[in-house]
């Protein structure tokens, strides 16, 4: 095979892997949008907050240490213990559940029946708040996140492809893990929503709020549930991204990579988020590979949006979105 083709395949494969990571973030958006019609901009910040909390627990940091020191003149930093990763993950997931209860009680409950743009703005306000809270709780410095995920080139794929084509493909182990985790997550979410009582209630709410209410489904419980799940998904996304770059503010900007995925896949479809992620991931990597060098590179940020825009012109509700029916 010619080199150029091999390189393109490699770029495409890596794009698929990156797409899985985008899809992980997009998944959180879709869950919340389906259940409550809220376009949750805070999803990226949730991922940051979850990752910060995880690292904080792992390293035994004292929350709000900086604030406490500033007020009382103390000199507190850590509890002086190291928690095993799995315990810290469970604790962080617990914090996300508590957070979603708080969000439901103090924000969402009061915003029932508002216009979508108002809800969207409220989540941006929430994003600001959580950003500040995360920094105050755990500090704004960069933190290393290590929960024992493998990183670096996958030797097997490298050798096998080298023997087969004379060029070893680069696939990151972390990406492989992320793909497996994402697949597991989607499968378990599907099983949950198809077969469990709560999951069915969730789908009922997504279909029709009022009908769901009238058969006795508690909307508030569903919202807490769905935000908790979204919080957990954010935690997973935070772990994947944080392992790569350390945990710091920029982590919250991954939300911007998830938006074109959502647009393309449709705001209401879980398979859409996955397929959209794959298309966007592969599309932007291949575009950067073929066209990037000609026009100066760094095209990925906008190309994802333009690609999604092109799809939308032909399917205004996204690939898998529900058909928008308008009546006068």
């Amino acid at each position: 095979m010619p080199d150029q083709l091999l390189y393109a395949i490699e770029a495409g494969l890596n794009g698929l892997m990156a797409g899985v990571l985008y899809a992980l973030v997009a998944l959180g958006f879709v869950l919340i949008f389906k259940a409550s019609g809220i376009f949750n901009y805070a999803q990226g910040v949730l991922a940051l907050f979850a990752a910060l909390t995880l690292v904080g627990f792992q390293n035994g940091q004292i929350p709000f240490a900086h604030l406490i020191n500033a007020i009382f003149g103390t000199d507190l930093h850590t509890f002086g213990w190291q928690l095993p990763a799995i315990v810290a993950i469970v604790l962080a997931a617990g914090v996300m559940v508590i957070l979603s209860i708080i969000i439901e009680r103090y924000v969402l409950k009061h915003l029932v029946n508002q216009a979508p743009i108002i809800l969207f703005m409220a989540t941006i306000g929430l994003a600001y708040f959580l950003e500040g809270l995360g920094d105050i709780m755990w500090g704004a410095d960069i933190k290393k996140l290590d929960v024992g995920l493998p990183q670096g080139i996958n030797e097997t794929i490298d050798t096998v492809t080298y023997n087969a084509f004379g060029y070893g493909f680069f696939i990151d182990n972390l990406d492989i893990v992320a793909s497996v985790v994402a697949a597991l997550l989607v499968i378990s979410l599907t099983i949950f929503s198809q077969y469990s009582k709560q999951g069915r209630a969730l789908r009922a709410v997504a279909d029709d709020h009022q009908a769901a209410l009238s058969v006795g489904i508690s909307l508030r419980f569903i919202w807490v549930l769905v935000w908790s799940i979204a919080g957990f998904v954010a935690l997973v996304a935070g772990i994947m991204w944080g392992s790569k770059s350390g945990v710091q503010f920029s982590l919250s900007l991954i939300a911007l990579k998830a938006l074109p995925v959502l647009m393309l896949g449709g705001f209401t479809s879980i398979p859409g988020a996955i397929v959209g992620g794959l298309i966007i991931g592969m599309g932007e990597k291949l575009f950067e590979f073929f066209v990037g060098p000609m026009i100066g590179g760094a095209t990925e940020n906008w190309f994802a949006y333009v690609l999604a825009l092109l799809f939308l012109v032909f399917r205004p509700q996204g690939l898998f979105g529900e058909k928008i029916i308008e009546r006068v």
Partner: protein
Amino acid sequence: MFYREAGDFKTSYADDSQTFPIRFDRLRYYAVMAVAFGVIPFFINDYWANAVFVPFLIYAIAALGLNILTGYCGQVSLGTGGFMAVGAYAVYKLMTAFPDVSILIHVLLAGGITAMVGVLFGLPSLRIKGFYLAVATLAAQFFLVWLFNKVPWFYNYSASGQISAPERTILGQAVTGANTTAPAKYLFCLIILVALAWLARNLTRGTVGRKWMAIRDMDIAAEIIGVNPLTTKLSAFAISSFYIGVAGALFFAVYLGAAEVGEAFGIQKSFLILFMIIIGGLGSIFGSFAGAAFMVLMPVLLKNLLVGQLGWATDLAAHLELMIVGALIVIFLIAEPHGMAQLWRLAKEKLRLWPFPH
């Protein structure tokens, strides 16, 4: 008592259709104008101009523009930052290419160029609606920023890609560049803002504005009663982009003096301006002002309070500031989802009845 229609007799049609039919409103409007033009310029110093007034005036222009598109015509846009960048780079190219032409003309031309770009990126709005459109406008945001960063022609091949505004004068007074006095900056932005606000007010009261609102309320129904969605939506995009382009031009030339596209006109700017109009009130001219004032003054006030007054560490203060601004936004949306303009309307209703509410 003094705020009511009764007793304020109109004797001509022109009187009857004036912008402020209530006498008290008119007087208040004249008073604000008098303070803005007659008092503030004499007291303004560098700090007040650069930290408070100039950004407020410029953001008010941008908010007016976005309010036309989102508040009046119902098309949610997140491309504001990108369009402001178009205005900024257009004015930079014009300023450096034709140094002898008045800066005022350059600013208006920059608005015109932005309007054309806006129409181009407004085309998808004929197919795409709601949040899908909002995200689609992000394509404009990211693409424009990338373009200005990448093509050296836009920044006159300078080593770093920064653009800096050279000094330009109006009537012998510098309005751009470092030697601009605070009152000159302030007045230049104020005059443009007042002219544009006057234009926006009258546009939205007329045929064009009514068409926009018809499209906003229900585009299919509007189409059936004879509103052409193509021209209506695109005219909203054009006029809105004109405002935003002017704001971008002033933002770069008068306020910042030097800019880098990714930093000054990034996605954060788009969100900020959308905030302004939502907090201020969608579909309200007053709301654009109120929202801009809130988002500009709030952080400055908080900073001065926390760092200056209470002597807190700057980082704690900055984090707290984020939390407070976030919380205020949420509280605001819960308490009054229709924004400050709605509060204003309620206050006026109360005033009508005051002091005999029954």
